[in-house]
């Protein structure tokens, strides 16, 4: 199977779905870039992360729409176009920018179906790049999946590798509900095996990345490769873990997590968003409700501190949870009382 970066896997998914379904359009600031520039180069960027590269030459400006920097209008237009029968994939660049279009996301697209009594579908995908670790400061680094997961009506996808990214994006485009698709910036170059043909990865189905018996480790997005490293390192000492990547936070495959904890009795949750009202808090609560009697030790959460994401590399390195912290957490949860 070909090795491919997550960026290219996402790009391939967009190409294949636009090829397959004429109703699929892509819109956002600089999705191709170059419109109105003086060079005449019409595809000047292909998305600032290069994910939409090649779409404009292939599918034309009617389907690959460069917009003004107007996030409310981008998301709203995607929502309106979806109500009117298209299947738009909107790009917001940085997930942090939801701040200026939150109404369109959580009052509009998320609620249409419910408040219209099931009389509408809103097959929108909103792609955003999220995550800390690249020195981009407090307004370009947040991991917002907890916030999005808190909104009923939205589905929230957080791929950790190229294979899942492609399958989940195709699923998102074919899905009839609005989907927030969060791509961790630091994972774009991460390579993995990706089949050339289109395929889907269903929502709400966790991936068991590693199998073990001593500890259940749940990790999200970029925390998955970090947790892999911690888990693999401990395996050499005979400490083995179930490493679970939920892949989507809404729906969340809590069943798999609970089932694993029933076997291990120990849970470590690795979450890149701040700890309060986070995915880690949500998962911990569900496990406490459903598997309390199986827990041998208190649940341990590995998260950044409850601060904005700092800019200075020295600070940001301290902010983002990495393999050593994950490994230490696994050891902590293994200690006997």
């Amino acid at each position, binding site marked *: 199977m070909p090795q491919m970066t997550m960026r290219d896997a996402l790009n391939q998914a967009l190409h294949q779905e636009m090829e397959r379904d004429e109703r699929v359009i892509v819109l956002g600031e600089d999705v191709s870039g170059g419109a109105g520039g003086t060079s005449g180069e019409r595809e000047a960027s292909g998305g600032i992360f290069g994910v939409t590269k090649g779409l404009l030459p292939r599918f034309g400006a009617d389907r690959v729409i460069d917009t003004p920097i*107007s996030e409310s209008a981008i998301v709203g237009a995607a929502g309106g176009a979806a109500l009117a029968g298209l299947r738009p994939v909107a790009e917001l660049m940085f997930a942090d920018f939801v701040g200026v279009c939150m109404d369109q996301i959580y009052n509009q697209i998320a609620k249409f179906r419910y408040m*219209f009594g099931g*009389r509408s579908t809103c097959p929108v995908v909103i792609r955003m790049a999220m995550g800390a670790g690249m020195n981009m400061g407090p307004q370009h680094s947040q991991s917002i999946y907890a916030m999005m997961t808190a909104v009923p009506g939205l589905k929230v996808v957080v791929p950790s590798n190229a294979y899942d990214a492609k399958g989940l994006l195709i699923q998102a485009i074919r899905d009839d509900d609005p989907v927030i698709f969060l791509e961790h910036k630091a994972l774009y170059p991460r390579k993995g095996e990706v089949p050339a043909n289109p395929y889907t990865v269903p929502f709400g189905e966790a991936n068991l990345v590693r199998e073990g018996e001593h500890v259940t480790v749940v990790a999200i997005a970029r925390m998955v490769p970090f947790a892999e490293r911690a888990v693999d390192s401990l395996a050499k000492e005979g400490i083995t873990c179930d490493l679970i990547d939920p892949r989507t936070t809404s729906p969340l495959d809590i069943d798999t997590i609970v089932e694993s904890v029933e076997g291990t009795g120990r849970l470590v949750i690795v979450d890149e968003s701040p700890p309060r009202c986070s995915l880690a808090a949500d998962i911990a609560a569900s496990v406490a409700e459903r598997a309390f009697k199986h827990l041998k030790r208190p649940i341990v959460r590995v998260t950044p501190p409850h601060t904005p994401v700092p800019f200075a590399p020295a600070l940001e390195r301290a902010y983002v949870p990495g393999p050593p912290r994950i490994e230490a957490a696994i050891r902590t949860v293994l200690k006997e009382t």
Partner: protein
Amino acid sequence: MIDSTGLGRERLLRAYRNMRLIRDFEERLHVEIATGEIPGFTHLYAGQEAVAVGICEQLGDADYIVSTHRGHGHCIAKGCDPGGMMKEIYGRRDGLCHGKGGSMHIADMAKGMLGANAIVGGGPPLAVGAAIACKRRGAGNVSVAFGGDGSANQGTVFEAMNMAVVLQVPAIFVFENNGYSEHTGADYAVGSKDLTGRARGFGMAAECVDGADFHSVYDAMGRAVARARAGGGPTSIEAKITRFYGHFEGDPQKYRAQDEVATLRESMDCLKRFRARMRTDGKLGDPELDAIDAESLALVDRIVAEAKAAPPPSEADLYTDVYIDY
């Protein structure tokens, strides 16, 4: 393009019937709301009927509108079932949205009615999206964003107008300037005091019409639709109008001069103006319009009675339609 002089009897009767029904629907709600039987709060459209109907008479089911919190008139004008609307307003299971939306969220995709919207300024971005879909489809359809003078001050509306110009999509922004942004005067809240000039500043065609005159609204909309179909991009239509009631039912309207509404009910009543015009043009006679008045009142009586008798949703309905598949 059909201008109003070309409208035949049937079309004129339909326009009158719709305006009359909106008026009766709202006047009756005004009464029923006071009884406490209707949950929540409601914004009445009475006084603005000629705008909704003048605009929507130019549209078909394949055209789209996006409405506002004051949306009953738009719904009726776009063809939504009044009985289903009334049940929705009463929070009944068989309401248009199964009781989950209420007055501010009535929608009917089959009629191209993409929803009333409780967020001021929430609709125009959606209308731009529907216009993108119309352009893709290439069948000459258009998309309309209704809004008021209040929504005109929202950034989302600016974004939507600019994007519509940039993308040259068949979107039409209708600003029903009824003089008040909730309880605050439009002359105070609109800095330039000129919505039409502002729209023109975005680079789109813009005109201002007498919103109480069905024919003016209809003709302005005809020009906007023709422009959109010809690939001329978006248009802004400001309709100067008034509302006969407060921002919401129960609003004491202390911001309005004491005789303001009474005076406007005389000078700005689109139904009276329509009748007068029919008399002048000799197109429709008073007896047939009187007959419509009677039918309309009877219809409202019936749908109110049905709504009152209709069952509420069951608790199980709470959980449905959050997602299609989850």
